[in-house]
């Protein structure tokens, strides 16, 4: 009898325990953390509880993982003109190379949950991986004789994926650029959209035009702030955000319109926001909800917006619980873009680079623009570099400029910043050196680069060598 009871207790405990594990794996919840097999990288730690984002199929193996990688990073790789695309490695003639480095799959080099072997750029291979295929590089490039293979991608010369600002002809074309260009202007800051006759500009509105019903007017400050905002200038009234369905539901009033509503007009901004560290937890499709499988039985909350408490970079102590949505930086009604460019960042970030901004030469330019000493577009703010403007052209001849809200887009490897930002004002040699100088980055570029990357010199050597040979002919 005692044995029977013990068996029964054991079976019940096993089923309950197993069921709890299975349910949390399937539905989510805090308990899911027990399945994390090792610390997640800084790139993914925010979304580590959304297991399905990467493990797109429980039994799909490596191809299911690859699908997860490409869902978020595919477009980025295409835009980077990936130097080692998958297409190179599915070619049968490279079968021997795939045998030593299966670069058809991201996880060959970037294994998640492996903190002990994770290097810069979340690479989990020994850092001399280039040697696996390019061991004989010195045969074609004698200048590379004797160089250590762990320096190819760490010395500021090459990247595995994105070499848009590092390829030889790019360096050759810009080798003689001065440190500071003649005109110091951020090119897209002063961009004016081409006139579109089919879309007449709406007339600007003033405080008296506010169309909120009296019951929802709220504080007078809201109306005053709105009247000074870009929304009023562009003819977007209270109802534009608070009564999005005014035509069919004239009595409806949305007290706190969310990001989805902003996205209705600011599509590119909202999309890129969910591609970066600030908004990735809110990305569409990231959280696979299964609450409808057994309605009411399980809670399925999805991921909450990012907070400084979840961040791995230094943040201010008093803002830990602040949730990041559009209004966190833009402030409802006022939508002060000047505030969003620097003060909003300083509100949370407490790392050295951020704290050094006020004393930086870039900030002094901002001061001079504010005082009218320099023209618009001369200022360099946090957003100038980390959320730069992009010129988007479609296949039908359309053009538009949007502010990318993916602060991560050009951050790592930092040579990505050369083309998107630095090159507007600085020469290539100066830029490459500055971006390789970690101390200079920490003090927010106060001073000249103390580090020198030799790639431009080597390109010049090859140019001279060619000129010499031409003369001999």
């Amino acid at each position, binding site marked *: 009898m005692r044995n029977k009871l013990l068996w029964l207790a054991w079976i019940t405990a096993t089923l309950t325990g197993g069921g709890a594990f299975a349910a949390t794996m399937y539905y989510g919840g805090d308990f899911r953390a027990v399945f994390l097999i090792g610390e997640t990288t800084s790139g993914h730690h925010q979304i580590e509880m959304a297991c399905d984002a990467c493990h797109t199929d429980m039994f799909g193996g490596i191809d299911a993982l690859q699908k997860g990688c490409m869902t978020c990073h595919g477009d980025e790789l295409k835009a980077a*003109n990936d130097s080692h*695309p998958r*297409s190179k490695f*599915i*070619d*049968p*003639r490279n*079968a*021997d190379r*795939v*045998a030593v480095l299966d670069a058809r799959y991201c996880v060959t080099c970037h294994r998640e949950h492996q903190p002990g072997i994770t290097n810069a750029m979340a690479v989990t291979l020994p850092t001399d991986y280039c040697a696996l295929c390019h061991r004989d590089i010195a045969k*074609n490039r004698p200048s590379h004789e004797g160089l250590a293979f762990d320096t190819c991608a760490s010395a500021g010369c090459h990247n595995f994926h994105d070499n848009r600002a590092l*390829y030889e*002809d*790019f360096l050759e074309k810009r080798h003689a650029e001065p440190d500071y260009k003649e005109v110091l202007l951020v090119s897209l800051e002063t961009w004016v959209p081409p006139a579109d006759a089919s879309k007449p500009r709406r007339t600007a509105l003033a405080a008296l035009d506010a169309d909120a019903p009296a019951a929802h007017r709220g504080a007078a400050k809201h109306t005053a702030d709105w009247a000074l905002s870009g929304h009023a200038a562009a003819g977007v009234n209270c109802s534009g955000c608070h009564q999005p369905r005014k035509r069919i539901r004239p009595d409806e009033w949305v007290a706190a319109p969310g990001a989805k509503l902003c996205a209705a007009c600011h599509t590119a901004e909202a999309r890129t926001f969910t591609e970066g560290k600030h908004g990735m937890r809110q990305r569409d499709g990231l959280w696979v909800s299964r609450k409808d499988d057994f309605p009411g039985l399980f809670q399925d909350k999805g991921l909450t917006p990012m907070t400084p408490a979840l961040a791995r970079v230094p943040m201010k102590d008093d803002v830990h619980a602040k949730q990041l949505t559009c209004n966190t930086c833009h402030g409802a009604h006022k939508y002060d873009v000047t505030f969003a460019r620097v003060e909003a960042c300083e509100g949370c970030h407490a790392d050295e680079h951020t704290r050094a901004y006020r004393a930086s030469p870039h900030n002094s330019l901002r001061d001079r623009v504010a005082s009218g000493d320099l023209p618009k577009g001369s200022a360099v703010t946090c957003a100038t570099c980390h959320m730069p403007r992009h010129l988007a052209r479609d296949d039908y001849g359309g053009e538009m400029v949007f502010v990318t809200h993916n602060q991560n887009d050009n951050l790592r490897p930092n040579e990505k910043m050369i083309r998107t930002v630095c090159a507007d004002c600085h020469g290539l040699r100066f830029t490459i050196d500055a971006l390789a100088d970690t101390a200079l980055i920490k003090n927010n570029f106060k001073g000249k680069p103390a580090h020198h990357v030799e790639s431009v010199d080597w390109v010049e050597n*090859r140019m001279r060598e*060619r000129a010499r040979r031409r003369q001999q002919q």
Partner: protein
Amino acid sequence: MNKRLKIAASCTALACAGVLAVGLAAPARAGLFGSDDKKGVSYETFTDMLHLVMASDRAIYTKKVVARLAAKEKVITASEHFEDEKALPLPAQMFRFGSEMVSSKTDKFAYQLLSLWPINKQNAPRTEVEKKGLAFIAENKGEKPFYGEEELGGKKYFTAVYADVAVAGPCVNCHNAHKDSPRTDFKLGEVMGGVVIRVPMK
């Protein structure tokens, strides 16, 4: 006389058998490509047809787009960095993009443009069949293709190599002038490289 006839008859029979044997053996040696072994085309015919399409498209792009607009009319340039320079993709890039798109859609065949004198060293021959094939078409001045078989990554492939000939001025001009070109004396009509087509064998 009778004996002679007999000899002649047996010779004829032998010859016929020989022709028949060769006829039967040839496709058997070359293998058949297609779902039904008896109705399929030989690997050679299959790659010959593929190559004909590739070579024609390639020649048309080179002559009617690049040579015409860049070399003759001078309204646009062609550049390896066509996006940065707002230029036309080079004919070799055009060819490679097609090859990459095919690879992303099927594994029934794959093709590349290789050369004994490649600007990009990754496009030098790597396998024995590639080396033999490129040497063969260069020696034969592109008069006939090279067919071979090889095993790569545990899979058996039928590999055909076709001559890639300089069809227009820009081909030779660019390759002779490029800083990374190992050869600077190409002439119009010469074999500059080869198209390698691979078909996995059953």
